[in-house]
């Protein structure tokens, strides 16, 4: 079987047999401890500076940001954004408890459909599990309340994140994810809207994923 021949060839190269039990235990210990390596200083800022850096990097990467005080400001902010972008007031919304708790009656003109996006949806609202300030990155795991397609299919992505979920570095966000149990099937780190520079090394937004990424940072509860 190729498995044995590949492992055998590697061991011959390393001039040893399978690792002895004590060395295996040492490596298993490293896996269990999963030690952090170097974390950049800009990934270790206090909350308010983190939020500012997070927003700066999103804008640098051609996304847009709105900071809201409370959850009940979200419907108005979405309606205003869609009008500003000349988009119809209709959106798919991931079936996430936080998104379900938004008082959408504050913007009665918005037409909503909860669940997984269809290829025809132009706009989708999702919730970010975590934000990462060091590069303006959103951490989007998959799960029953977070379909992966919702991050990808619509031309316009609106992502809601609570300010307290904005961490300094990737490691902190993954610590939180680990605390929830096993690794979800899919974990996306998203930094800005989709793009390609394949045509003459010139950047164009909206290759296969969303052309626009709008992030709503919410400070407090409803």
């Amino acid at each position, binding site marked *: *079987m*190729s*498995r044995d021949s*590949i*492992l055998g*060839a*590697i*061991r*011959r*190269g390393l001039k040893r047999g*399978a*690792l002895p039990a004590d060395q*295996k235990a040492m*490596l*298993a210990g*490293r*896996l269990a401890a*999963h*030690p952090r*390596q*170097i974390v950049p*200083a*800009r990934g270790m800022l206090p909350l308010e500076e983190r939020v500012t850096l997070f927003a700066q*990097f999103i804008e640098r*990467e051609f996304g847009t940001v709105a900071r809201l005080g409370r959850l009940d400001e979200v419907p108005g902010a979405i309606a205003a954004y869609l009008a500003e972008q000349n988009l119809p007031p209709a959106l798919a919304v991931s079936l996430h408890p936080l998104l379900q708790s938004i008082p959408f009656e504050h913007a009665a003109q918005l037409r909503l459909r909860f*669940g997984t996006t269809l290829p025809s949806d132009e706009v989708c609202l999702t919730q970010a599990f975590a934000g990462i300030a060091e590069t303006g*990155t959103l951490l989007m795991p*998959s*799960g*029953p309340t977070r*379909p*992966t*397609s919702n991050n*990808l299919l619509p031309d316009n992505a609106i992502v809601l994140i609570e300010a307290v979920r904005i961490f300094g570095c*990737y*490691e902190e966000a*993954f610590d939180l994810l680990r605390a929830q149990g096993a*690794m979800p*099937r*899919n*974990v*996306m*780190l*998203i*930094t800005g*809207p*989709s*793009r*390609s520079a*394949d*045509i*003459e*090394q*010139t950047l*164009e937004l*909206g*290759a*296969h*994923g*969303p052309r626009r990424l709008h992030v709503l940072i919410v400070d407090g509860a409803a």
Partner: protein
Amino acid sequence: MQNNGAFQENAKRAMADAGLQQAMHRAGPHFVARRTAAVARLPEFEALREAGKEIRNHAIANLDFYLETYAAAVEASGGVVHWCATAEEARQEILSICRKAGAKTVTKGKSMVSEEIGLNEYLAAHAVTPVETDLGEYILQLREEGPSHIIAPALHLGRAQWEESFRKSHTDLPKDRVFRERRDILTEARGKLREKFLAADVGITGANFLIAETGSSVIVTNEGNGDLTQTLPRVHIVLTGIEKVVPTIEDTLTLLRLLARSATGQEMSVYTTFSTGPRRAEDPDGPHEYHVVLLDNGRSGMVGTEFQDMLRCIRCAACMNHCPVYTAIGGHAYDSVYPGPMGSVLTPMLVGVENAAALPNASTFCGKCESVCPVKIPLPNLMRHWREREFERHLTPPLARYGLGLWAYFARRPTLYRLATRAAAVSLGWLGRGRGHFGRLPFVGAWTRTRDFPAPQGDTFFAQYAARQREARK
């Protein structure tokens, strides 16, 4: 594959290709400037390079352990691992998975390993239609060309060629449509490929990293094509090399901090995605089957040799972006799946040095590649090892062997060497004293045909060095 003559012919043709030269002039400075700026924004970058090197070395030194741990984690999450010693085995495994899935079309994320094993030709010959979804790979598939760069595959093409290929291939669209700007080309491709994504039965991606701790495969894209490829079809196949495994998420994050900055000068690629097994019972989307095809194809043979350092490579392309040879002639001249410095080291390992003899010689040994490598691979040294092997196996051309022999004769006799160089320096200096340079010289016609040879100014290096030492001692 390449002998020295063929490579030199390719290089000459590339230098005379105006379109290619324009493309290279556009791309070269762009990559270099963006990487330099990204590195300058992160004070920890140098320390990260050292950490990245250590992580990769640790993974390779325990590769058997981490591969077994990784495979066990994939299986625990409901995935299937296929170990393939050769390219042929990998092609057969993938075809067999496609057939079991009843697949007619297969979408593909960008994968250099797929190029390495010639997967597209093989699938097409067996009634499975592969569709490349990375924009650059897509147009290359339409044009039936190979990539000329490992992360910017269509770097050699200009806008006119994009338009021409789209008009020729997308015959269902109006003939008189106008491409006003690059965005129109992109929009057309997006529309075409969206249909393919939704119709595909199987999606094949590569992997930038495999994580032993969690059994995850990690891909990095800017377009989102890899994500649609691995999310929408019923079956996801990951095709990658055995050397891609790293121990933990934290180790992966360290390498990710190096990857995009070294590659495109981005702080982070737009989509960095960790996939772990098939769709869970409660998941609303994602593939029902998750397969990993682990390819060896010569890699295990590098472990324990002087080429082991090459297994650290994370395929960022910084070495080729900064290479004076690559940026002058482009990737196709190498006639090798992996071009540039990393390709010059890797390709002889994959196809045999007798089939790639020119590649380790396609370098000026300026050392730039090593200085920008995010995991500090000593690329010039590794190319030198190949040159030594070529010399030992008499793969070096006779004239070059004769020249090296002549040089070695003098180099082993220091007094004679100094006398000869001094005689040459003094006489050339005297002959060229009027103009300061020569337009033509015997025996070096290949040099003087395209540039002047400067006349030596004064004495030899040895003589000047000795004189300065004497001066310093006074």
